[in-house]
């Protein structure tokens, strides 16, 4: 090597600035690896992304494909393909497992791990195209599955749930395990119109962000009032009890002999009182699982958060519904249309219709203000009748 390219030199200056500072530093890490730091530096200097969607490599056993990455400046650095590795539920890994990943990264990659991707996979970057097949064989032999790419279920994620958290209405890790027991084909083979993400949270605090960044979200909850431990509540003292009462947005809580009384029909499971309760208040017994559909972030009309589809009583029902939803999605979405975009296009009522479900008050944030709406003959008969019968939703 003779002269250093201008952009590489300038890039190095920039990179050495980024390397400073108190927070854990990705450049300091990268410099301990064979990662293309010079390419990265040049991209910062040039203010343009120097990676480009890579080509294609055929790897039997990874039907959803592998993320191919090339650079538009092979003179500075070449390829940077990456594999995504599915790890155990809750992102738990044993030390042995992590060491194993390190071994693979050293042998096939650039000696770097991406831990984790924001979709909660381990990524091993920098595997040259020629070595991907060999890597795949050896890696699968070691007991791991690659994936979370293509038009399939991406990695299903879950909060830590019952394994560590008193708010959990379900064992979320167990839920993810059984998802894969049942639906692995949907995750392995790319048969959907577009990717599908499922995230599972143990309670409405939604640490898995299943109401936001997932096509499908399951949130554990309950029906009626939270459970109040009378002895514990009384010990909290009146100031704290006041705090608890104030925390309820629907005013479901009032002071009582026993400390507090919660009107079950007024509770919207916001978790407010549980958070203030210091263990004296816990989720209700009648479990419910909220199914959200259609979250996605790159919306042409703005990001779309998940919409509540329905509540079911068991995780079994929830899983059945998931199966049904992806069928409907597969049958009706256009190519490369995410679930949220489908719902945006046909409307929530349209989606419920496809699902063979009836819209309920739980599906609306607000009612319409526009009086002009196709009320047809059927409606004209049915609406007053239902009023007379006071038919519940």
């Amino acid at each position, binding site marked *: 090597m003779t002269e250093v390219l201008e952009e590489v030199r300038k890039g190095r200056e920039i990179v050495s600035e980024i390397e400073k500072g108190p927070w854990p530093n990705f450049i300091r890490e990268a410099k301990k*690896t064979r990662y293309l730091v010079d390419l*990265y530096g040049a991209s910062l200097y040039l203010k343009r992304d120097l990676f480009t969607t890579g080509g294609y490599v055929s790897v039997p056993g990874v039907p959803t494909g592998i993320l191919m990455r090339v650079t538009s400046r092979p003179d500075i650095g070449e390829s940077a393909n990456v594999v995504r590795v599915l790890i155990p539920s809750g992102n738990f890994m044993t030390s042995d497992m992590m060491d194993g990943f390190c071994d693979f990264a050293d042998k096939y990659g650039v000696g770097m791990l*991406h*831990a984790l991707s924001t979709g909660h996979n381990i990524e091993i970057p920098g595997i040259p195209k020629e070595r991907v097949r060999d890597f795949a064989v050896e890696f699968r032999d070691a007991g791991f599955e690659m994936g979370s790419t293509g038009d399939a279920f991406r990695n299903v994620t879950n909060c830590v749930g019952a394994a560590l958290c008193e708010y959990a209405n379900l064992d979320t890790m167990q839920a993810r395990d059984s998802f894969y027991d049942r639906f692995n084909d949907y995750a392995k083979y790319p048969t959907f119109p577009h990717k599908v993400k499922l995230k599972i949270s143990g309670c409405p*605090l939604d640490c898995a962000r299943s109401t936001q960044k997932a096509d499908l979200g399951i949130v554990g909850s309950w029906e009626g009032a939270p459970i109040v431990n009378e002895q514990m509540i009384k010990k909290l003292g009146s100031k704290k009890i006041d705090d608890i009462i104030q925390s309820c947005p629907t005013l479901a809580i009032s002071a009582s002999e026993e400390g507090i009384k919660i009107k079950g029909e007024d509770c919207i499971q916001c978790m407010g009182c549980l958070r203030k309760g210091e263990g004296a208040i816990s989720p209700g017994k009648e479990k419910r699982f909220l199914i959200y559909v259609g979250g996605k972030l790159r919306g042409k009309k703005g990001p779309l958060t998940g919409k509540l589809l329905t509540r079911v009583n068991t995780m079994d029902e929830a899983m059945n519904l998931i199966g049904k939803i992806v069928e409907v999605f597969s049958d009706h979405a256009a190519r490369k249309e995410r679930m949220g975009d489908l719902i945006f296009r046909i409307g929530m009522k349209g989606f419920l219709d496809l699902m063979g479900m009836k819209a309920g008050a739980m599906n609306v944030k607000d009612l319409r203000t526009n009086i002009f709406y196709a009320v047809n003959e059927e409606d004209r008969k049915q609406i007053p009748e239902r009023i007379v019968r006071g038919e519940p939703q």
Partner: protein
Amino acid sequence: MTAIEGPPRPYSNFIPDYLKGSIGKWINHTVVRSGIIEHVDSEGRKVYSVKAGSTPNGRYSTETMRKISELARKYAGGSMRFTQALNMEFITKDLEDAQTLTNELNALGFPVGGWEGHIWNMTSCAGYFHCALAATDAPSILQSLANDLHDYFDKEELPSKLAISVSGCPSSCGGSFLTDISISGIHTEVPVVTDAAKTCDMQGTAFSCPVGAIQLKPLPDGSRTLEIRANLCIGCGLCLSACAGIIFQTPEKTDGHAIAIGGKASASRYGTTLGRIVVPFMPNEPPHYEKTVAVVRKIVETWKADAKKGERISDWIDRIGWEKFFMKTGLPFFQQSMEYLDLRGIMTIREGSGR
């Protein structure tokens, strides 16, 4: 070749032994200090979770990762996890281990922090570091922000949880629009089709455009090429991932990032909200992105001074309204934050009285 179906499971094989008996029995937790939580189960058993900040976009050398793995072996039952927001988390069986571990993590350069009135997490996507779609370099922006704000992770207090995310483009892989403060890359030009598009799946590329701006154009020689209708294109950049032959011409001028605030997932108070765009365009100015950092700092400090305890940024804005937000932060209001050509545009107009 033994075919494994799906991720390794059951999960019980991968968690510390001393956790197993308590699953589903937890009754309370107490934050011991920033980053350390004591969990107690109905039989009085306790464990401690230790949360440590991660590198932007979770990039670790195997060298460092092996050290971390060793710490897990020593103090956390031979296992560790990454949280939903990608911090490292270790579960120790006693407080002493938690504290020793904290010291060791600190020595390795990883702060222990988060929970309650702190920064809980800061995440970024790959950006220029690895991705083909980036309009801005997420990791270096996050690094700048984290360097600036790190005290709020483990030392200084805030009114409530603060989560920060940076994504290199509107795909928002980093979680932009979801976190209290988020930054997202944005292209502002129409891409062009180069010769290299010849071997692309043209039909598939046309499908990839969310607004239908891409058409197949027949060429004299009977073959076809792609055409982008500039009047429809929103510059989203999705076609670039479908076909490497499509590129932006002058990203150094036209790429930048927007700043959005007020996203949150939890059902608390007003429930899930999306981030709203307070600054529609900031230029990319590595290494330190001073202007961007200054805006974020200003927002954080104003919120800190003005919010009541427990108030997330979205709650705070719900209470005071956008007009007061701009007044209090002294940030300029940009007309471009107001309205855009789509269904929700009309919803951003203030109607009637009230906030």
